[in-house]
């Protein structure tokens, strides 16, 4: 599915707590593409990600994933998504393996298929030693890896990662980047929301910058000077100089 449009976001708006959190956001995302979503706090990143994950319904606008309308058939669309929310919410009383089995089973896999999927992602994310450990006793970095495993266990077409490098050590960050590229090579589209510009430069093909709920920049990242150019663009938008 590399190169074909997987996600189509059309004029999406959403009000939260009485104010416009996201206004007229539109973009498309191809299979195999990694999009970095940047913005200062309150820019509308989390609201956008919540709408893309299906947790929030847009007030207006349409979101199509592989042709499935999020409003008309949210269940079908959401099965194609793997979502890692910020701070990786988990059930503290369940083990790593139980989480992965549950997320697989909840998406309709039978027990043997869920077991195979859990084993595969445990192996890929090197969670073997933590397999039987309860989520409640995991360190923040381990929780983050488990959250990531839960998002990827069903091999989703669209992976949404909100601050996935939170609490990871440099080696784990390197592993995360490799994993994101790996999923993209396999044809999945990835949306990565982060505050760390270097993270976007290192792993993304394209970058979108949200400011005050509006999409102010959407362009590919390429070339040796991509990092410097992105930094300049980001600060110009964030400080209002680019208005």
């Amino acid at each position: 599915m590399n190169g074909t449009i997987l996600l189509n976001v059309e004029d999406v708006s959403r009000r939260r707590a009485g104010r416009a959190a996201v206004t007229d956001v539109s973009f498309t995302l191809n299979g195999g593409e990694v999009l970095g979503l940047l913005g200062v706090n309150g820019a509308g990143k989390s609201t956008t990600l919540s709408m893309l994950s299906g947790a929030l319904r847009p007030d207006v606008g349409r979101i199509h994933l592989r042709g499935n309308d999020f409003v008309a058939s949210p269940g079908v669309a959401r099965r194609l998504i793997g979502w890692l929310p910020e701070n990786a919410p988990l059930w503290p009383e369940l083990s790593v393996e139980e989480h992965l089995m549950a997320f697989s089973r909840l998406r309709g896999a039978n027990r043997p298929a869920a077991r195979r999927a859990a084993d595969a992602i445990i192996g890929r994310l090197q969670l073997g030693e933590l397999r039987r450990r309860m989520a409640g006793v995991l360190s923040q970095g381990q929780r983050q890896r488990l959250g990531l495993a839960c998002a990827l266990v069903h091999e989703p077409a669209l992976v949404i990662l909100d601050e996935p490098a939170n609490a990871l050590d440099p080696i784990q960050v390197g592993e995360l980047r490799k994993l994101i590229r790996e999923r993209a090579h396999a044809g999945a589209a990835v949306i990565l929301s982060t505050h760390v510009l270097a993270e976007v430069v290192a792993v993304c093909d394209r970058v979108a910058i949200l400011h005050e709920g509006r999409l102010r920049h959407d362009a590919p990242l390429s070339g040796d000077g991509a990092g410097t150019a992105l930094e300049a663009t980001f600060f110009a938008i964030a400080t209002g100089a680019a208005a």
Partner: protein
Amino acid sequence: MSVAAVAQLELRRLAVRPLAWALAALTLAWLAWTFVLGLGQFLGAQVKLAAVADAPGFTDLVAIPLLAELARLAFLVVPLMTMTQLAGERRAGTLALLASTGLSPWRIVTGKYLAVLVWLGLWLLATLAMPLAVGAESTADWGKLAAATWGTALLLATLAAIGIACSAATSFPAIAAAMALIVTLVLWTIDRGAQAAGVSGGFLEWLSMATHLQNLLRGLVVTSDVIWFALAITLSLGLAIRRLGTDRERQ
């Protein structure tokens, strides 16, 4: 399939949560004590009872009071069991995660409801084991005991549905428990005022949960009572599903 997966997940969580075990241990100990006391009084009154024609037996004096005691405890236990089902999940952020798997609100609510029902069913069975163990060796009125058990099961199912609905309405488990307790107590006592005024047979009497349970505890299975419980369960679960469905609009 997904309903079963939600129920299974919830049962697993209940099984490793200390609250479920603590509630089961404490309430069963209390019920066992109540049973032993009731049995002692029943055995002590054997001579007097033998002299009375159509005297109440083991079922009336020991088994049904035990189920009535379980019903009383359920008003406190069920809200505690259901309070975290949706409110706790919403507060922890796992409800949105659960919804992101593509599960519809009715599947989430039904799965969680079934898990609570399994726990309550085991609680009822463990309680019932006490009179059954003794009743097997005596002349228990099995029909009356079956009707009372059915009534208690319907009451538990209704309390669980109300608890789930209250849990769906808030993000705070303690508020969910308090709401469930108040709603169920109001439903239980709603006709007290009418009774005190000497009015009977009105709408408030029909609305009262006590009216419908009393018949079943007396051994009378009346269709209208069963329909009342079915309506209460359907309405409560419907409200929970509706509230969960609006989560995507509300946040």
